[in-house]
């Protein structure tokens, strides 16, 4: 078997050359952009969400704002999160259907998925849109029940995903209309995402996509007193994506994986192969990427693929399927974790730079278990240390502070 084939994966009856897809977002604004991604080695792509012709879509500008770490000086900006208030596609459905047909015909090995959105109250709209996409050749549908800002006022997006009964009802409408696989894209902006996931399963979904963006207010311009992104002085809550949302996404993916057992397309801040591996380990079998591509281009696919392959080889996984969900059994309630297990702080003074961040953190955010000697070198008071690990989190040096296991004291 060729090495690259290890990345191949079957996902609700479709074969993917590798698990990486462009998600339904600005990188899939046109069929041409999706074609370029296929050529660059992406396994597939989900179109920007399509709507019926009658849904007028007019975008505002600007519609993005980021949370970045700006330390000033010559430090390059580092983007941690990106908020957008962009709507679904503003390109005509007819053109999109032609582009889908073109992609499916010319790139049969790559999976072209149509993302769709219609009004929650119209069975006819959902079924018409779904069957037109199926007829154009879309290999699967992704139902967008989850966009937080587009367009809940019209009964669309997250307005659906936040109500499990609507999720089930609309999924079943689409199920009646098409034979191709249906993915339901879920919103994290809900108290219990597994309820929406179960509703989608009940409605006939073949797979779940999670998560869509997290509803946010990215920031305020303190000079002009305007919310960001400021559209002529005003703004709206938007959808947050990028590295900052990954922990939320991992939690959601693991929850719906355990609740439904459905195949999952993991989404939410995937930037490097490491993120990809984490999503697979908590139950995803395909992965969707947007923000990292918006920041660094489709060329990141080489690092995603190569890095994941290297990892799989190192860990002895021969397929994505084998790796998927491996960590799920290790997720428990805190009450059920091993209370006899105890670790305490251990400081490698040979690499310590004597910044004493661990000392400050333990003093004011911990248990006052770290003391300084005359040379300002920190030491752990093993009696006082409760093993919280705050010191490890704040230490700026790699492999300096670690937690070491202590054997339970002899009775």
């Amino acid at each position: 078997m060729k090495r690259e084939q290890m990345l191949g994966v079957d996902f609700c009856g479709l074969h993917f050359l590798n698990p990486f897809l462009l998600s339904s977002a600005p990188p899939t604004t046109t069929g041409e952009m999706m074609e370029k991604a296929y050529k660059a080695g992406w396994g597939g792509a989900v179109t920007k969400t399509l709507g019926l012709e009658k849904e007028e879509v007019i975008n505002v500008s600007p519609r993005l704002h980021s949370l970045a770490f700006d330390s000033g000086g010559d430090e390059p900006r580092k983007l941690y999160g990106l908020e957008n208030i962009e709507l679904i596609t503003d390109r005509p459905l007819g053109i999109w259907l032609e582009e889908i047909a073109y992609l499916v015909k010319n790139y049969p090995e790559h999976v072209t998925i149509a993302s769709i959105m219609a009004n929650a109250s119209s069975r006819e709209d959902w079924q018409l849109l779904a069957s037109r996409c199926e007829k154009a050749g879309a290999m699967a549908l992704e139902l967008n029940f989850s966009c937080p800002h587009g367009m809940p006022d019209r009964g669309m997006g997250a307005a659906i995903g936040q109500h499990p009964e609507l999720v089930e009802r609309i999924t079943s409408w689409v199920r009646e209309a098409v034979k191709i696989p249906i993915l339901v894209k879920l919103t994290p902006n809900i108290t219990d995402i597994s309820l929406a996931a179960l509703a989608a399963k009940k409605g006939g979904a073949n797979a779940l996509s999670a998560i869509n963006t997290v509803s946010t207010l990215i920031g305020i311009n303190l000079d002009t007193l305007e919310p960001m992104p400021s559209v002529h002085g005003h703004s709206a809550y938007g959808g947050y994506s990028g590295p900052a949302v990954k922990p939320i996404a991992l939690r959601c993916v693991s929850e719906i994986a355990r609740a439904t057992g459905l195949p999952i397309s993991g989404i939410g801040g995937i930037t490097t192969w490491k993120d990809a591996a984490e999503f697979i380990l908590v139950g995803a079998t395909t992965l969707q990427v947007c923000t990292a591509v918006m920041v660094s281009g489709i060329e990141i696919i080489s690092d995603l693929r190569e890095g994941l392959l290297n990892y799989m080889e190192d860990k002895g996984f021969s397929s994505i399927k084998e790796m998927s969900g491996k960590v799920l059994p290790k997720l428990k309630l805190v009450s059920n974790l091993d209370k006899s297990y105890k670790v305490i702080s251990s400081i490698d003074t040979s690499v310590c730079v004597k910044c004493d961040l661990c000392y400050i953190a333990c003093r004011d955010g911990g248990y006052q278990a770290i003391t300084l000697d005359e040379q300002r070198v920190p030491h752990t008071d093993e009696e006082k240390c409760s093993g919280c690990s705050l010191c490890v989190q704040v230490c700026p040096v790699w492999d300096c502070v670690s937690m070491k296991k202590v054997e339970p004291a002899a009775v």
Partner: protein
Amino acid sequence: MAKRIPVPRLSPDERKKGFAETTSGIRPQAAVGEANRCILCNDPPCNQGCPAGIDVKGFIRALRSQNFRSGIRIIREKNILGGICARVCPQEALCEKSCSSSDLAEPIAIGELQRFLMDTEVKQGLKALPMENSRGKKVAVVGAGPSGLAAAGRLACRGYDVTVFEKEERPGGLLRYGIPPYRLPREILDAEVDLVVRHGVSIQTGVRVDSPGTLLGNGFEAVFLAAGLQKDQHLSIPGREAEGILSWRDFLRDVFDKLYAGDSPPLFSGKKVTVIGGGNVAVDCASVALRLGAESNIIYRRSRSEMPAWEEEVAEAEETGVNFIFLSQPISFQSENGRLKAIECLKTSLGEPDSSGRSSFQVLEGSEFMVATDFAIEAMGPLPEGLFSDIRQDGKGHIIVDDNCMTSARGIFAGGDLVNGGKTVVQAVADGCRAAEEIDQFLGGGRVVL
């Protein structure tokens, strides 16, 4: 981490004491931090600046995500001598020259990042590159210097049965006999030569090839000539018969051979050694002599800014105490009882740039002065030996090749210093790789040139 990562470097005093590598590599945290300083710009100048065509942005991206293995592969697939080049490349004039981060702060320390990845691989054990199925065809390479080794490695990966003929006892060419171990530790050189061998390349040392045409008749279907520049230039000035005048080649080889064998090198304590020349080799000779206890001088006929040697090397030599005598032209060797005791020089002055773009110079009549010395080392740029007389050459003996790296003799290709007159190690590697692809085409490979 906004500032360029500082490279741990021995102090001038420590350097003078021996031949330990001047710089030591950076730690993983520093390497990943420096990689994160990269802004991953589009169509990056670093990629364009690498003669070997390494995807620098690609390996930096892999390094950022701690995907060391892919980073290593990205380097090796374009440059099998990646650890050597990380150390001996003048990065400031190549990959780092137009780095986009220069406009923000300082260029990314690309050479250090490459070295980190290559050293990481050395610790893990070097891995062979992917090999294509055997073509059942034999190719000969003449010369086991950087160009020959790179060509051999690439051809072996393409499925050819490659034999390298090397006239010296050990492979490496200029890397072994011209570059001091404090710039290129021999274990790195040996490891990468061994990596080439592990691709199935046979290196036959102590074999001189004067007539490559006969190889074509002996089962080899193509020959790559990478014999380098083996003829030294001498000053044609009076007094050369004096004892104490050495060629750079003999001087360095003697020292390096002894060091490699674990023997003590010749000592020059209390002696004056004067090197004549302005290239890297001249600076290396002076720096080596200094480490052997000598008081070291360099005589160069132009000024510091015209020196072909790299600025970094010149600065290092200055720091350790090499004395530069600029704008001076030797006119005779002075001896006493047959032993050299001084070099007579004339001062020079610079004029308009000549055809090479460097300032021309004129000697100033009546400005004679003496440089007292016990040894003189002639370190002017070497020339080809002038072999291979049935192959078209320029007036100085450099082989002339066509656009496909082929010489005037069908099936015989050439590259490296023998063709380009002596540029960088990485240029020699690039020539070797390119010639290997052309040889592959010539023998029916039909692949797109990488």
